[in-house]
Every structure is written in structure tokens, then in C-alpha cells.
């Protein structure tokens, strides 16, 4: 019996081995009539109704529709792939085998396996979110300057604190200075607050996980009850901090999606991602000339200007002057005339209808008083890609002690 099986197996193996060599197998049928095929590797399921994978899946399908592709037939997905090189490699092989022309991987831990797959399949473009690796032909990374959107949300929060006469602002954060991604977001938000209310003080409560509804709720409650915060911003998965703010009659800035529905009396605005902005660029570039992908798209790190990041529509809870100030700051960032982490601080004055901005050259200081950028200096990178921003700016305090 066993002998038979091993013979059959050997024959089958060698047959497939040679058959597969030509790499010319029939490609999947496409409903749109296009031969172009998109592959995606997700950390969760595409059938999620919120969260990180949901946001990316929405972006990819919107971008495909805009590019004339049909997500129902031209998209292959391997979902629930953990950050495990072997499983990511298997997913890449699978998607490559199905004839995908561009493969997106959305989680940081896919980095090494995708780099290796890019070398193995030179005809396919591999595009990796949140990473830092790339090559010169078919492997790039992409992410966005979400700190710019956070600065804008900070403006709205600053106006609210000024109006309430309370300088204490809370921030529920997954991590603190350990990750440049969270750290830069906190700093940008604080600078945004300070552009309106120079005395604004941001209290950071770190929950040490990307998402835990109970911890998020507890953190927001502590910030409000113990530290008397009047606005609660957040960098974590659920809407719990906003819901707590709503319950306790204070205000808040959400994240990832417009949370006004969850906290109708509290929510001001939220920094949000529009991933389709990148996916459309990437898919269209790959469709027109894949060999030039690295020169047309390259490593992608865009902000407000590309539409990849934005603040959600301001709710009725905002101070009347907020919208004007946000528009002014948006224009400054869009034109590239100014950026958040520079030696120039913005300062908004005036009431609704007559908001004015002044640009003051000033040292950008960290919370220990060290100079990060000298007065008038150019903006430093937020360091999300390189991971170099690991300090808080002046006016930020972490209220719960660092673990360990």
C-alpha cells in the first residue's frame, strides 16, 4: 500500500514539476475582460466590517473599480495571514501562481517574505505597507503622513479647549515613544492644539496594545475623571474613547473613521485614511508600465496633498473658527510651504470669518527642553519609516508610567 502511494506521489510530483516550469499556464478568467490581476495579503479577513484590514480592502476595491477592474473576478486574496515568513511566502506563491500582476501586503511583519518573493518573481510588483524595505525594480513600500491630519484635528481640539477654558487634553494611545508612528501622531496633535491654545497640555495614556476595548475605555475614563481632560483624542482601534467622552459630556477626536455616529455630542473630527488614493496610483501605474513602477510610484509616503490622509468632516460640536483654521493649515501643507515638525510654529487668532495665521520662528523643543529643530529650520521627518522619532514635544506628558 505504502509503496504504491509513494510511487504515485513521486510520479505526480515530477509531472507537475515539469508542467509548471513553462510558467505559461492559463490565467484566471476576468469578468472585466482585462488580464490584469490584483493580489492582496491581509492580516484579518476581507469580510471585516471595520478596522485595519477593512480600510485596506475598501481602498483596494474602490481603486480597482476606478481603474476599470472588477474586484469580484480580478482580485485574489489570502486572508488571515499571520506575520510568519513561511505563511507569507506561501501566500505570495499562491497569488503569483494565480497570475497576479501586483501584490499588496498590508502588515509590517510581511516585510522579509515579500522582499524574498520580489526577488523570486521579477515580473510581479510587490507593494508593502508600513515597511521600510524596497528594491529598484518591483518592490516598494507605502504609508502616509497621518501626522498632518492629526495636526489638523489638534487645531479643532485647541479651539475647544480655549472655549472651555480648560488646557488639559487627553490622548489614549496604543503605544507611546516605542513606535514612531504613535509618537509622531501625539506630537503633531499637540502642536496642532498649541497653534490655537499655546497653553494646551496633552496627557498621554498608553494602553500597550493596538486594540483592547476595555483598556481603551478605562484609559479615557481615567483621563477625564483624574486628569480633568476636556477633549479625548485617540490612536487605537475602537470608538470606546469617543463613547466615554460622549457619556461624560466632554469632547473628542476619533481615528480611522468619522466617529460622530458613535459619539454624536462629543466628536469633533477624526484623522482618517483614504487608502484608495494610493491603491489607484499603484494599480494604474502597474497596468500601464509595470517595468517603470519604481520610477513612477517608487516608495510612497504622501500626506494631505495626495488625499491619502485627511480629517473627517467637522461635526456641529466644533467651535465656529475651527474649520477656517484647518483650511488654512491644509493649504500650507498641500503647497509644501510648511510642515508640522519645523522651526516655524503656526498661531491662529481671530474669530470665525476673520481667522488669521501667523508664522513664528521658534525652536521645536522636546519635553525635556532639548532643541529638535532650531528656530526657522526645515521640518524633520516624522520617522515612521525609519523609526527615529522617539521623544515627545514640549507640552506632552505621559500620565501612566512606562511599563517595566
Amino acid at each position, binding site marked *: 500500500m505504502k509503496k504504491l502511494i509513494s510511487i504515485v506521489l513521486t510520479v505526480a510530483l515530477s509531472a507537475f*514539476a515539469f508542467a509548471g516550469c513553462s510558467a505559461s499556464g492559463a490565467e484566471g478568467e476576468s469578468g472585466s475582460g482585462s488580464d490584469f490581476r490584483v493580489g492582496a495579503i491581509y492580516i484579518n479577513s476581507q469580510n471585516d466590517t471595520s478596522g485595519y484590514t477593512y480600510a485596506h480592502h475598501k481602498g483596494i476595491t474602490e481603486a480597482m473599480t476606478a481603474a476599470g477592474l472588477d474586484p469580484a473576478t480580478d482580485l485574489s486574496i489570502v486572508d488571515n495571514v499571520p506575520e510568519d515568513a513561511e505563511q507569507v511566502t*506561501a501566500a505570495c506563491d499562491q497569488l503569483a501562481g494565480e497570475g497576479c500582476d501586483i501584490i499588496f501586503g498590508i502588515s509590517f511583519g510581511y516585510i522579509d517574505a515579500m522582499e524574498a518573493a520580489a526577488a523570486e518573481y521579477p515580473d510581479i510588483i510587490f507593494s508593502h505597507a508600513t515597511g521600510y524595505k524596497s528594491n529598484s525594480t518591483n518592490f516598494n513600500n507605502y504609508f502616509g503622513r497621518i501626522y498632518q491630519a492629526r495636526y489638523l484635528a489638534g487645531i479643532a481640539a485647541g479651539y475647544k479647549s480655549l472655549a472651555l477654558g480648560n488646557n488639559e487634553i487627553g490622548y489614549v494611545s496604543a503605544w507611546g515613544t516605542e513606535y514612531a508612528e504613535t509618537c509622531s501622531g501625539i506630537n503633531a496633535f499637540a502642536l496642532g492644539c498649541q497653534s490655537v491654545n499655546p497653553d494646551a497640555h496633552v496627557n498621554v495614556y498608553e494602553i500597550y496594545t493596538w486594540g483592547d476595548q476595555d483598556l481603551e475605555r478605562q484609559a479615557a475614563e481615567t483621563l477625564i475623571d483624574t486628569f480633568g481632560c476636556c477633549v479625548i483624542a485617540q490612536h487605537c482601534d475602537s470608538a470606546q474613547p469617543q463613547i466615554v467622552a460622549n457619556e461624560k459630556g466632554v469632547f473628542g477626536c476619533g481615528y480611522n473613521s468619522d466617529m460622530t455616529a458613535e459619539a454624536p455630542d462629543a466628536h469633533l473630527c477624526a484623522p482618517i485614511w483614504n487608502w484608495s488614493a494610493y491603491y489607484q496610483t499603484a494599480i494604474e501605474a502597474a497596468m500601464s508600465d509595470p517595468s517603470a513602477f519604481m520610477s513612477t510610484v517608487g516608495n510612497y509616503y504622501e500626506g494631505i496633498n495626495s488625499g491619502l490622509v485627511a480629517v473627517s468632516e467637522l461635526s456641529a460640536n466644533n467651535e465656529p473658527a475651527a474649520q477656517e483654521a484647518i483650511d488654512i493649515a491644509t493649504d500650507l501643507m498641500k503647497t509644501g510651504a510648511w510642515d508640522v515638525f519645523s522651526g516655524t510654529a503656526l498661531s491662529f487668532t481671530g474669530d470665525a470669518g476673520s481667522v488669521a495665521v501667523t508664522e513664528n520662528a521658534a525652536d521645536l523643543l522636546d519635553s525635556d527642553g532639548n532643541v529638535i529643530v532650531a528656530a526657522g529650520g526645515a521640518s524633520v521627518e516624522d520617522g515612521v519609516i525609519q523609526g527615529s522619532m522617539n521623544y515627545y514635544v514640549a507640552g506632552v506628558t505621559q500620565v501612566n508610567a512606562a511599563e517595566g
Partner: protein
Amino acid sequence: MSEYHLVRRGDFSYKRVIICYAIGILVSLGIGALLLIGLGINPIEYYGRMLSIGLIGNRYAYKCIEGLLKVFVPLLITSLALGLAFKMRFWNIGGEGEFLIGSICAAIVAFNSNGMPKILTIILMCLAAALSAGIVGLAVAALKVKFNTNETLMTLMFNYIMLYLIRYLGNTKAGWNFFLNPESERPIFGQFEENCKMGGIKIGCFTLLYSVIAAVMITIIIYIYLKYTKQGYEISVVGDSSATARYAGMRVGRIILRTMFISAALIGLAAGLATSTAGTISESITNNVGWTGVIVAWLAKLSVPGIFITSLLISVLQYGCQAAATQYPSIDSNFADLLQGIILFSVLAADFAATFKIVKKEGPKND
């Protein structure tokens, strides 16, 4: 008042087993088909892709086979190892933990191998993996023999200890933590150097990894070990009746220690091979073989050829479900898992139906 109860069938017939299994599988596929139709997918097409493990229309068909074998090898060796312990009625359900400690120890060798020759490095990795897991198995067996502790609980809890250990290693950036990639600001496991990665025989584009050859050899060795050696004979006797074994003058404690060491060491070896094949470690490197292996061993009734076939079929099922799900954007891996679950459940039900029958409890024959 009539009641029904279960009776073990006295006889055994291959025909009945085959019929029961066929019905079970057909029923499960039928349920799956209904779900698929509900999702607007042609079930025949879907099953075709599933059973052909995504080979049809694949540009790199050989990759499917390679991928399948990467799933198959650890599952096969782990199931054999678990079968060995189960044959002795030692409930080693610590496959996950033993696999993980093997994997970690293999990685310790790999990250400190500094350009050692490839063959030597890989052998050392496998040795470290097998030895570390084996020692764990030995410890559990020793506690059982000495203090009559419950091995099910011990091995079960050990799984979680190892899971949290590897999670800790993967999340803690520190100078001593050589497991992590030093380039990355975020904690992420490092990649092995080329000298730690499993090689293979090239057949055209296809690479037959040496680990596959090792797995087949291990299967044959275990088959011979259990069937023809004195130690294998002792395992059968101890498993059948430890009172008889003691009566026959066997040193039951020593046999338990030895067998459990071999069982755990084999799982460690599977981990060593898998780690070298993956070229890195991760929390999910076990691919759940510690659990799936239990199902395989039981479905195969602990027979070695049976375990070979069953683990191959389960690998095809796992890989095929995943492959088919990839092609339909609306099907996610949760559905693939659900389908796998339905099929496995039906097979177990079929096995039950083949072993037991339901009879009506008869009343007394009164005159």
C-alpha cells in the same frame, strides 16, 4: 418504553467503513455546497479547485506541490510522534509546545551559526530541536512515573508556556535578544543566513526538499520500530495493559520515559526541519500540527501507514481549502476553516458509525 443505546460492532468490514466514510464526506460536501450556493459560488468549480489544491490554471503549479509538502512534512512527523505516545496510552497533547521549543532551540543555533557549513548547521539545528523537545517530554513522563501527575494537563499547559515565551521573544527589543532583526525599529524576528536554510534536490523547477525525504525515512523507521523491534513490542504491551507488562517483567516506568522522549524528540525534529525550511521563526510556525496531529493519529487508528495517508489527505484539505478561497474574494479563510471543520466532523461521525451501531433496548421476553 423503548430506549436506544450504542453497541460496539463485533465484526469489522472494510466495505462498511468505506461506505460510511463515503456517505460522511458526501454529506459534508453537500452542506458546504449549500453554503457556497448561498454565497453565489459554483460549488463544483470551488471543489474542483480545492481538491486539485489550486493546481488548475496555476502559473507555478510546482509551487503548489512544494507548498503542500511544507504543510505535510511537519504534520506527518508530529502525527507519527503523537501516535507513538498514544499507542502507549500516554496522552501527549503538548505537540504545540514541544514543536515551539524545538523551533526556538533550532533558531538559537541558526542565529549563532556564523557561517558554519550548511549541512553541519542544519544537523545541529535539528539536534538542538529534537533534544530540547525530548527533554521536555522526558520531564513530563518522569513526573507521571514518579508522582502520577496528569500528563494531559502538564502537556496542555506547556503549550501555553511556550506560546507566551515565543511571543515575548518576538515582542521584546533588547540587546540580548538575538532573535530579532536588528535593522528594524519595530520588533520582528530576524531571517536566517543562507547556511541555515533547508536545501533540496532540483527536479526541473521543482525542489524536493531534503526534509521530505527525511520525513519519508522517519515514517519507514517508525513503522519498523513499532512492528518489529523489542521496544516497539513493549510499547504495545504497556499500552494494552500495564498490569500485564509489569507481570511480564517489563520496566514500565522506563518504557514510558523512553517512549515519551522519542515522541517529543520527533516533534522537535519536525520543528527543526520546519524552522530550517521557513528560514525564520514565528508564533505560528507550528501551523497547529500539535492539534491537527491528534486528529490525524486517531483517524488513522494509530497505524503508521494510516497516519501517512491521513496526514497527506488532511494536508491536501488544508492547502486546497486555502487555495480555493484565494480565488474568490468573497470567501475568506474563516469559510475555508468552516468547510474543513464540517468535513472533519463528518469523517469522525462516519468513523463512529462504522464502529458502533444503535440498537433498541429490548424488553424482557415474558411468557
